[in-house]
């Protein structure tokens, strides 16, 4: 995590506040900060999205490339997650400084996408055993304001929703096959992201837990639970992180909250993305010029 130093008294103030269900910015424990999203922001990607959650800024680009399927899964494509913590976010990330955090985020993302029932990899298959689409999902972290895991997963889902893979027609030609990739921007294949998960991080601070912790709150937190939650309310990956431990009962409580908030996020995200899509091509990309 990105280090913020706090004095003992500040920590106590935050801790008691959370106990009182009144956080430093007036939110209650289960409130999310307001989140802004825009997709299709990088034109040379197959799909992209930008998410801003308070001071956390994330840009995700998806690139589809052709490749060979893994031999143990000949009829499936692949997702490759890569996270880069830009030094723009904090000088701590300069050089290889952000690598540890980056691997942690990409590991959890790939784990939460690693179940066929939530993302159908066979839709990425072109020619079984020979050719498939590999989706490189590159997450770029541009500014840190806490809750990086959740924000990354939301941006990834939005970018996948935005992804349009060119249609491929397979033609048999005298024994050898030929692939023809359509260059019509409307002749595309969309991905089904209906049951794709979003990550919800529950930070245990004192005896209570909060969602969407700010950086200062993260500095007070010794143990957090990260859960990949789908729209249906199922769980696709779970992980405890941090140097502290949790009471079995509070793990259950946190899972309960995570399920509720996770479903909320998924539902309103889908709703917003569909709204954006309805605006169609008329919509002007705002990006970083605002």
């Amino acid at each position, binding site marked *: 995590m990105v280090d913020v130093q706090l004095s003992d008294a500040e920590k106590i103030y935050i801790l008691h506040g959370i106990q009182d269900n009144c956080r430093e910015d007036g939110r209650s424990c289960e409130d999310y900060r307001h989140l802004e999203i825009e997709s299709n922001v990088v*034109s040379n990607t197959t799909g992209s999205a930008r998410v801003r959650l308070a001071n956390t800024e994330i840009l995700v680009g998806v690139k589809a490339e052709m490749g060979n399927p893994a031999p143990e899964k000949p009829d499936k494509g692949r997702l490759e997650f890569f996270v880069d913590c830009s030094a723009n976010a904090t000088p701590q990330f300069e050089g290889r400084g952000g690598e540890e955090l980056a691997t942690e985020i990409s590991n959890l993302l790939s784990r939460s996408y690693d179940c066929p029932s939530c993302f159908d990899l066979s839709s990425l298959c072109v020619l079984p055993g020979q050719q498939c689409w590999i989706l490189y999902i590159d997450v770029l972290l541009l500014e840190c304001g806490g809750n990086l895991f959740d924000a990354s997963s939301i941006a990834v889902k939005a970018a996948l929703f935005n992804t349009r893979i060119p249609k491929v027609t397979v033609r048999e030609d005298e024994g050898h096959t030929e692939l023809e990739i359509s260059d019509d921007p409307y002749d595309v294949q969309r991905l089904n992201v209906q049951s794709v998960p979003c990550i919800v991080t529950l930070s245990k601070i004192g005896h209570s837990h909060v969602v969407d912790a700010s950086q200062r709150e993260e500095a007070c937190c010794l143990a957090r639970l990260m859960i990949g939650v789908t729209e249906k309310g199922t769980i696709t990956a779970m992980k405890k992180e941090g140097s502290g431990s949790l009471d079995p009962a509070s793990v259950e409580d946190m899972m309960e909250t995570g399920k509720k908030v996770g479903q909320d996020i998924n539902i309103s995200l889908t709703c917003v993305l569909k709204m954006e899509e309805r605006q169609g091509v008329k919509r002007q990309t705002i990006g970083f010029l605002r």
Partner: protein
Amino acid sequence: MAGLELLSDQGFRIDGRRPHELRKIQCRLGIFKQADGSAYIEQGNTKVLAAVYGPHEIRGSRGKALHDKVLVNCQYSMATFSTGERKRRPRGDRKSQEMTMHLKQTFDAAIQTALYPRSQIDIFVEVLQSDGGNYCASVNAATLAVIDAGIPMKDYVCACSASFVSDTPIVDISYLEESSGGPELIVATLPKSEQIVFLEQNSRLHEDNLSKVLDLAVKGTKDVHHVLDQAVREHVSQVSAFENTDQS
């Protein structure tokens, strides 16, 4: 150039520009809250973010501190999705290390380094989308970010590229023009004092034509300066206008 006409008979380039025309520049200062200065620039489809931290105490080994001036520390990095074909690493390859060095040299020359002995200024550049002229856009974005951070500079540093196609010099070349194998000249100047702080030329160019190409590129930097200056003035006016009304 087989099959690809970089300059049509009517004198238009592939993207419809005339030889001396820059791509559309759009920029904004103060993108990030946490950095001391930040800026974003779009030059055509080349999009770059820059953040500046400092001047601040030297981080890491104190040994790096310079007793008579500030340490300018740069990092050039490209998003893995920024290029047509996906990049495997955002930085650390030879090309970006070279860019990092060039940026450092460029800004060492422009920032008034003697004002902040023993401290450090970080300039981080992130290319989000690349369509030729990455160095130029990086320099231009970083200039804006340095200004946004309120760090004293002798002048703006503006960069521009140029090439030479069918006996005509062309300015601010795009990726397509860059990769066609023709000559490429990159220059960074302090536009008001008309000094060159960085100059690089690749590939073959007849010496007779050098001055023509260089002149056009230098003119390009002045045009860039004009646009950037406009943006800075607008930004400052907006912020300080507000401050002044509050004090009354």
